[in-house]
Every structure is written in C-alpha cells, then in structure tokens.
C-alpha cells in the first residue's frame, strides 16, 4: 500500500472515530462508526490481511451497525441535549490525552524497529482464512472455547437486564 493511501485511510478512521463521540445525534454517530470501520478495513487490506478486512466490513460495518441503527430507531432515541460543559473534567481528560500522545510520540521516536520497512511476504497470496481457522481449532482452541462461554454469559446478561418481566 502506498504511504499516501495509508495516510488517507488512517485519517478517515481517526476523524470519523472522533465524530462518533462528538455527534449529538445517535444516528449520525452510528453512521460515522461505519465509515471509521471501513477505513480500518482498508488498512487491513493494506497489510494483506484480507480475511480480517472482509470480516471487519461484514460483521462490524454490516451486521453490528444495522443492529445499532435498528435499536436506535426502535427506542426512538432523540438527539442528546446540550449539557453544560464541565470545565475541570474536560481539562483533566484533555491533559491525560495530551500526556498519552506525547508519550506515544516519544516512544515512536526512539523505536528503531518501527522505522524499518519490512520485506513483502514471500507468497503473494496467503490462505488466511484457512490459517485463521486452523489456528482457532488446533493450537488456540482453549481460548477460543472460553470465548464461547463468554458469549453465553453475555447472552444471559442481555436477557436478564432487558426483559420486561422476569419469569
């Protein structure tokens, strides 16, 4: 991927990620999130990780976002009211952010490995779907199974916390 494309997509991801938080209208926030995810997917393509890019679009930008929009419309959430700006909280949050970015900048300056360009992959097309599947079901099976339990627990939680009347 040419550096220009990288910068365009990285900027797209970041700008729309900020828009998710800054927008007062939930529909606009959700749509900004879609665009941010698309930028992220493009970055994955640039890393030759096609499978993750496709999943990013299908699952996040597709399924999850449709669900988000449905819920926003079903609950008829209105645009958030303007709140009084809490100056100390904003100042503290801004300070932490600036400190974090400064730290990241300092680390990246000293990080020699990050400045070297890696050689392109030996094989032009990696069979990444097969590789991911193989890893998940062979060497990394234990964490994968635990994720199954995690999803079960999350499902129970959704039912318990959102059902109108518990039986």
């Amino acid at each position, binding site marked *: 991927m040419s550096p220009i494309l990288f910068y365009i997509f990285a900027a797209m991801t970041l700008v729309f990620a900020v828009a998710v938080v800054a927008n007062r209208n939930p529909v606009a926030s959700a749509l900004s999130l879609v665009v941010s995810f698309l930028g992220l997917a493009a970055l994955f393509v640039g890393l030759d990780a096609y499978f993750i890019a496709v999943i990013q679009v299908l699952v996040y930008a597709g399924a999850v976002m449709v669900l988000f929009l449905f819920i926003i419309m079903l609950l008829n959430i209105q645009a958030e009211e303007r709140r009084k700006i809490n100056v100390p909280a904003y100042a503290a949050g801004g300070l932490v952010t600036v400190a974090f970015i400064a730290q990241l900048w300092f680390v990246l300056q000293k990080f020699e490995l990050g400045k070297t360009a890696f050689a392109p992959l030996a094989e032009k097309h990696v069979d990444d779907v097969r590789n991911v599947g193989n890893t998940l079901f062979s060497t*990394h099976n*234990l*964490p994968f199974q635990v994720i199954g339990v995690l999803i079960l627990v999350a499902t129970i*939680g959704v039912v318990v*916390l959102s059902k109108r*009347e*518990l039986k």
Partner: protein
Amino acid sequence: MIPSLSLEITVLLLGILMLLVESFSRSDDKRGLAKMAIGILSALVGFSFFVDPASGNAFYAVDATAHFFKVLALLTTIVVLIMALEYSSVLAKYLPGVTPGAGLGEFYSLPVFTCAGLMFMASAVDFLLIFVSLELVTISFYILVAYMRRHTASLEAGVKYLILGALSTGFLVYGITWIFGLTGETNLAAIQHALATKAVATTPLLFGLMLLLTGLGFKVAAVPFQLWVPDVYQGAPTPITAFLSVGSKAAGFVVLLRVLQPFLGVPGVGVKVLAVLALMAALTMLYGNLAALPQDNFKRLLAYSSIGHAGYLLVAVASVSDTKATFGSAGVAVGFYLAGYLLMTLLSFLVLIVVARHSRGDDILHFNGLAKRSPFLAFALLTAMLSLAGVPFTAGFIGKFLVFAAAVQAGKFWLVAIGILTVAAGFYYYLRIVAAMYWHEPGDTTPITIAPLTRTAIGALTFAVFVFGIFPQPILRQLKDPAPLPATPVHTAAR
C-alpha cells in the same frame, strides 16, 4: 489423578445445568439451585488436590500458584452463593418479576461462570487466555453489578463499571499488542525466552508494560485508577460487592504476578517497573486508608478499605526481587495476604448482609448495639475488623507481617514506614464499627435470626481467621517454591 482442565469444565457444566434446571423446573423456589452449586463447588475444592501436574499446556499452567488461587476462587464463590441466598429477599424487591423467584436462578448461576473465569485466570500463562478469561470475569461482573434493575444506585454502578472496565480493557489490549509486537510471542515463557535471546528495545517495552499496568491497575483498584470503586461497591448487590472485592482482586494479582515475571530479569526494565509499582503501592495505601476515615456507610467504608488492602498487596508485589526470575518471599506474602483478606472480607460482608436485612440499612449506625441483639454476629464482625486492622493472632496480622518483611528484605523501608502509618489510620475506622457494636445502645432490640447455612459459614470463617492467625503453616506450605517458568518455551513446535 485427574486432568486439571476438568475442574473448570465441571464448573462450566454446573453453570449450564443450573440454567437448564432454572428454565424447566416449575418451582418458584430457586434456593435448591444455589445449594446444589455450593455442594458441587465444595466437592471440587477436594478434587483440586488430586490434579495431574502434567496436564497443562502452552496456555494453561498446572502449578502450586494456580492450584492455590483456584481454591481461593472456589471458596469465594461458595461464600458468595451463601450470601446470595441470604440476600435473595432484598434482591427480589428490585427485580421486575411476575413470580416470587423470578430472576434469582440467573443470579445464582452467573457467579458460577465467574468462578470458571477466575479459575482459568489462575492458570493462564498466555496473554490470549489471560485476556479472554479476564473478560469472562469482567463481563459477568457488569451484569451482576447492574442486576437490581429497579434500583437506580445499582444501575448507576453498572454503567460506571461498564464504561471504566471497557476503558481499562482497551489499555490492557493495547499493552499486550506492544509486547506482542516487540517479542512476537503471547506466551509468557516464550516472551521470557525472546527477551533473553533477542535484543528488544527497552523504551517501547516499558511503554507496553505501562499500558498493561494501567489496565491491571483498574482491575485491582490501585491509585490512580480507583475512582470507580466507592460508587460501584456501594451500588452493587452486596454479595456481588464481596465477590468484586475478593475474587476480582485475587485474580488481578495472580495475573499481575504472572505477567511481571518474564520482565523482571530484563536490565533497565525490571527496576523501573518495580519503582512504579512501589509508588502506586504507597499512594494506594494512603488514599484507601485516609479516605476511609470519614465514611459513615459500612459498604462504602469496606470499599475504601479494599483499596487500602490493594496497597499492601502492591507493596509485596513491588518487593519482588528484580534479579531472579522467581518471586520467593514476596510471592508467598501476596498469596497469604489474599487468603487472609478473603476470610476477613467475606466474613464482614456476610455479617453486613444479615444485619442490613434486619436493620434495613447498611450505615454504621445500623450496627449500634449489635452485641446486645446478636452476640454471635457481633463477635464475628469483631474478629473480621481486628483482622482487617491487623491485630496479632489473626490472619490479617500474619499477612501484613509477611508483606512488610518482604519489603524490608527488598530494602524498601520508606514503604514500610508509610504502611505502618496507614495501618494506624486503619485501626481508627475499623474500631469505630467495634465501638458502635459494643458501646452504643441498639436502635431496636429485636433479636436477629440467622439461617443455619449462613451461621455455619460465619462460624467457619471466624474460626479460620484465628486458626491461620496462630498457625499459618498449612497455607505457607501450599505457597512454598512456586515453580519458575520453564527455561525454554514448550510450545514453539505447534506454531
């Protein structure tokens, strides 16, 4: 000899079985479910001593540390279920149920899943499994904290915990990413191997570790990542508060110990990480103990006290030797302190639940004259408070002694000095409860009735606080010689 994973699998199956029974039984009385779980989990404590030591793999270690923390997780869950039984009448008031027992079945089964997560965490030696099991625990806590849907404080606590928990998870994952990027490994033994053989840049490694410490700092409630604790602890259902302050803390510390191990021997990294930990320990001790002084609500007081105790535990972690790759006396101190902390904290929460149900409130003034209403409960709470304060002949004293001994051994005298000052502050607010119980006149004089199971649990915990305060050898023997990480990675062939 049984494979070690069968313990976690049994716990998970138990959780699923409870959900199934809950769905298909026609009875409104869900107490049988919790009692079944208590029975099976107690049996598992016994079975955990017959685990095949060779049944681990690249993600999952089977060693003395893992076994110790698994027993802690099981015992905590058992006591939490006993508390949940005692608390069910309060809980039912705040659930939108059409039948009397609605929603209680899930409230009994979710801690069982949390227990499985805690047990996985005790054994996890790979960042992937550490992360996944940590999330299993955290997500089930999000649900449990917000469980009382008609209680605004519980919902508020749930939202606060969710947002800050998600933020801390973000830091944790970002830290893991940096470390993976630098070493190319997620397995802790393989990371140690890579750090010893490859030249890894120190600055980015420290950055990754800092993010990791931030994430774990949220989980163990260390200053400056403690702001969520008082509100969440006060708003959550009381059994869950107990579970959070014991289970979540124990798991956070076992992960902290395991994660730090590969980095301690690296020149220019270990010393700095330990210095940061020492600073966090000092601030946590001061904040927790000083902020607890003016509290009038017992639950909130216990929340601040749990921050203070995280500080003492961090003193032990910060006293780890940075030259050797094993933990020695500091690791033993962390283990023993957590065991003692478990006993006395669960004991205080058990008494709190019983008293709060009868007095309809959990402020300190609701404990006035408890000695006249129920000498048994008053004595149990007296034991817990003395042990939390660190009076000799209780488990809390031995724990603090081991922690400060480890700090002296590491030459961190300033930490010991701050520690002793804060212990003195601790005496004041713990003994305020004792004064309320023994020297104040009770508001109402109705005697308190206690269910037999709760009475047994309170009796056993009180007894254990004294036994391990006088005769700590059984726990210490369990904790001796924690196995160091294998010198070479065991799993690289599979990659």
